[in-house]
């Protein structure tokens, strides 16, 4: 299928598009994007229905420049294809319930761009976009394995992984060096030593132990996986109550004792605030802390850097990065217009510009975008480039599906880590509770 579609894009169309793009690049401005878009629309393998208009729901921006460029791309699409796009933006945590309602009542937005769990919660309600995925994958060097897995169910693509939001260690260089480490530790053993030294220096660290959708899930899964614990085995049997998980929880208890007080109530915003206030020396987050410091011209920006999560006893990266999936509903009156938009957003002129304006907050899911200059113009963004290659998926080590999505959305791992770390329950009780909660999802 890939070959057929790729061949259907004629040499003439590509030439027209390239010429328009080259002219646009020379003269700059929004006109260049629109010119290219018109050329693309004329010869695209995806042609919208006549008179189509679609409604799209996306999550509220994390980085302002990304949002502005996204709007420009949508406007260029409308200009080129005549398809009107109504773009609504909502708080990230509200996207999932809205998607659930739309899927159940069979009406609402035509396209949703939101968290990774959505496609696996409502797979039967989503438009088959295999042709779009094959077209893009064939043209742009193929998809990374992990984000692609989130989009595929039973051999068909039900959603397109638009990007991955990298979540890594954000740290203060001077404070880490003062604690005796020239660079951020690469092993969990050294991380513990650093954490204790930072506390002794009066510059403690902290990561979110509340129900933080992004930050909490990211680091709690990392620490459990780093010690060999996992929610399920490869057959989907719940195995979280294990000696490996116990070792991870004991490790977190010790970390927690050396962190700044109050992390048990932190959500996704608290660590940003604490870091920018100078209260913590390291935390885990996307690049938005650094981006905010740069935007506000804070002196602290020069002292911020990013690092991979340290490697644990299992001896390999065990990160959980967060893909953001874009999916269209079967009930849409204009399925072709939806597919055209999905393809358009990931074509090079739009995607490169958008990736650049996301200043490292998003990582590409198609391999050919690795060369985007966002990764070379500021070395502090470098670690985020690797987000797609180092991550496991949310269902690890079992299958991706409703159960994995449900357990993640219900914060099973985060709650277990939090309960054990704070002493609310013993390590054993926390694991037993998590085991029971996870089994409810995996029995379905």
């Amino acid at each position, binding site marked *: 299928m890939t070959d057929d579609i790729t061949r259907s894009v004629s040499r003439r169309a590509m030439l027209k598009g390239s010429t328009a793009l080259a002219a646009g690049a020379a003269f700059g401005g929004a006109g260049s994007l629109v010119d290219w878009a018109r050329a693309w629309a004329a010869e695209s393998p995806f042609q919208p229905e006549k008179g189509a208009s679609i409604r799209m729901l996306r999550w509220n921006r994390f980085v302002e420049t990304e949002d502005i460029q996204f709007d420009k791309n949508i406007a260029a699409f409308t200009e080129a294809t005549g398809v009107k796009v*109504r773009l609504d933006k909502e*708080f990230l945590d*509200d996207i999932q319930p809205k998607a659930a309602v739309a899927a159940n009542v069979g009406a609402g937005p035509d396209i949703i761009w939101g968290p990774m769990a959505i496609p696996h919660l409502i797979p039967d309600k989503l438009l088959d976009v295999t042709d779009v995925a094959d077209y893009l994958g064939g043209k742009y060097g193929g998809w990374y394995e992990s984000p692609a897995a989130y989009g595929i169910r039973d051999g068909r693509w039900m959603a397109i992984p638009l990007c991955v939001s990298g979540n890594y260690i954000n740290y203060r260089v001077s404070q880490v060096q003062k604690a005796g480490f020239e660079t951020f530790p690469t092993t969990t053993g050294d991380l513990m030593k650093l954490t204790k030294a930072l506390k002794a220096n009066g510059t403690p660290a902290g990561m979110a132990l509340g129900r933080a959708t992004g930050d909490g899930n990211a680091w709690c899964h990392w620490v459990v996986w780093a010690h060999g614990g996992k929610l399920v085995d490869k057959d989907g049997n719940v195995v979280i109550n294990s000696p490996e998980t116990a070792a991870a929880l004991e490790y977190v208890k010790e970390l927690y004792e050396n962190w700044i007080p109050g992390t048990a109530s932190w959500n*996704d915003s608290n660590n940003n605030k604490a870091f920018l206030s100078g209260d913590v020396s390291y935390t885990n987050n996307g690049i938005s802390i650094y981006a905010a410091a740069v935007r506000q011209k804070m002196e602290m920006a020069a002292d911020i850097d990013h690092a991979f999560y340290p490697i644990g006893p299992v001896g390999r990266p065990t990160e959980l990065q967060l893909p953001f999936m874009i999916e269209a509903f079967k009930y849409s009156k204009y399925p072709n217009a939806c597919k055209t938009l999905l393809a358009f957003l990931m074509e090079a002129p739009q995607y490169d510009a958008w990736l650049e304006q996301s200043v490292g907050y998003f990582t590409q899911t198609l391999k050919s975008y690795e060369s985007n200059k966002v990764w070379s113009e500021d070395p502090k963004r470098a670690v985020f480039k690797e987000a797609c290659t180092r991550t496991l998926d949310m269902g690890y080590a079992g299958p991706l599906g409703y159960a994995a999505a449900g357990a993640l959305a219900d914060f099973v791992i985060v709650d277990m880590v939090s309960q054990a770390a704070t002493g609310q329950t013993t390590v054993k009780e926390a694991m037993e509770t998590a085991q029971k909660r996870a089994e409810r999802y995996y029995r379905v």
Partner: protein
Amino acid sequence: MNTNPAAEVARDDSEGMDYLVSLPRRMVTVYLPILCFLIVLLFPFYWMGLTSIKPNDELIDRSLNPWWVVDPTIAHYYHLIVNTDYPVWMWNTMLVAVTATLLSIAASVMAAYAIVRIRYAGSRWVGGMIFLAYLVPPSILFIPLALVVFQYGLFDSPMALILTYPTILIPFSTWLLMGYFKSIPYELEECALIDGASRWQILTRIVLPLSVPGIISAGIFAFTLCWNEFIYALVFISSSENKTVPVAVLSELVEGDIYHWGPLMAGALLGSVPVCIVYSFFVEHYVSSMTGAVKE
């Protein structure tokens, strides 16, 4: 010997309140508890007000006194009112709350009167069913209601909320008014019937004038529930220009993991004002409704 009854009563009263005579006793038994209540009740408003006038650098600077502001600013209010659709959100909220409240109270008055006063077979059952409807959480109803809203083409319009909020408000208001109507002596209506009044005349000329405190009380509850409602407003409305305040401040003033606390608190504080005004106008009626309608 003093035989003046009024003087006796006065003396009894003064003896009854003797424990409040000395200042230390009054401090412990009256002023201290009142102070505790005031702190608990007003602290959220103080915190909202304080945060809404703090500049951004003070909001993240933990070396400063968190209970005070050094360099107050109205920038957050300016941003909220000028750079966002906040005035539109307030208008939407007011429109939805007032209309849904009026609709619900009108329906509830007739339902409550019919159940309490018109003795038809099964009236008690109907009352019980309405109470059961009140017990159903809105979070269970929103999916079926969403289906109705979409099929009638009401999605993303204020009418979606105006017509769905009564599903929460009518059971509650009816139940409240049923209790109130029961406290009105039936003899008053019997006299009116003997004088030839119709049921409608009895309702509008006798029962409703006597029920004003109860209706106001139900109205205040209904208005407040509408004003604060979140889940239906979140699900049924998508466009920024159609959102109500509780949903809009969250969806429009939180950007990813950055919470704009200044405008958020300014929005919450301004959003509380209409409810405070409604309460302040009708607080006396509200209190009197708690003590029943007509003293026999």
